[in-house]
């Protein structure tokens, strides 16, 4: 069973409560259509499952087949340096056909970022290193395609459809609660 090799840490982008019983880590590629399909599914899961889940996104750009994926990842991280990672993450997935450089800059304007800083940061070592580190943590953890989900550190090998992910999350939440002796 493939396991997450790099635990969630303060370099990660996290939505949700640190005390949530279930942590879902997604390795995703902004130009991958399957990740695009998973995006609204993840959003719905976060709404429906509330405090049960904490969600982390890590970059896994397949740059050989998706020529805009790596720069899109850099754009998300650069936006993150100005506190707007998730907003950029959402814009990228909602505009997968528009990931040219000029589109990324226009997203920065939409998000009211300091655009000059954004353009500098996209090429910065901090940003490129983060994307590199995400990718390799994914490889070492057994990421086998995009999107790949890890639920409490174990790779989810079922489908990333809503029902399959929800069932897996709820089973793991249940197990975590039993281990803690807590009723859900």
């Amino acid at each position, binding site marked *: *069973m493939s396991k997450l090799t790099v635990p969630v840490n303060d370099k990660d982008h996290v939505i949700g409560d640190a005390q949530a019983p279930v942590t879902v880590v997604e390795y995703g590629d902004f130009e991958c259509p399957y990740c695009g399909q998973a995006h609204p599914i993840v959003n719905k899961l976060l709404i429906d499952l509330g405090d049960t889940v904490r969600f982390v996104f890590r970059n896994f750009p*397949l*740059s050989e087949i998706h020529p805009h994926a790596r720069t899109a990842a850099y754009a998300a991280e650069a936006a993150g340096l100005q506190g707007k990672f998730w907003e950029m993450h959402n814009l990228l997935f909602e505009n997968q056909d528009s990931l040219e450089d000029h589109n990324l800059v226009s997203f920065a304007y939409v998000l009211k970022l300091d655009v000059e800083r954004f353009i500098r940061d996209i090429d910065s070592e901090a940003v490129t290193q983060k994307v590199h580190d995400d990718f390799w943590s994914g490889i070492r953890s057994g990421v086998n*395609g995009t999107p790949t989900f890890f639920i409490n550190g174990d790779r989810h090998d079922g489908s990333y459809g809503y029902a399959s992910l929800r069932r897996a999350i709820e089973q793991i939440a249940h197990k975590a609660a039993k281990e803690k002796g807590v009723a859900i």
Partner: protein
Amino acid sequence: MTKVDTCITLEPGTEAPDFSLKITPDQKLSLSDFEGHPVVLVFYPADFSPVCSDEVALFNEVLPEFQKYNAQIVGISVDNVWSHLAFGEDHNLHFPLLSDFHPKGEVSQDYLAYIEDEGESARAIYVIDREGIVAWAYIAPIGVNPGADGALKAIEGLTEGRYTNER
């Protein structure tokens, strides 16, 4: 649901079966051509299967890391060379695809990586050392992509002389 690790592979430490398969309409590639280099065989069911990130695309992304160890990667499926040429171009592949087309699946069978019912190769990875010995092997359960972590660890382990099918 098939359990992980019930798919039998050739044992590490055994000699990897040699083969000679087409990579283009006019050219064949043999395992023995790679003597002196570690080789990673990536068996997969079909070109153009409807996922953008099958193990072929994945290994293509991490190829430079394998090249640091002077390792070669080759993909093997039962598709013919024309499909391979188109697929390689579509995926921007930087390693050759071998056609296990005729006799169908013969090399995949030699490596215990052929699914008779489907008429396709399994998703299997073999790491073969510089002397042509199987160093590490893994056949994924049906429906699961193997990932590149096991092969990468195995290649790193070659330098240190450790052979095991551990993941």
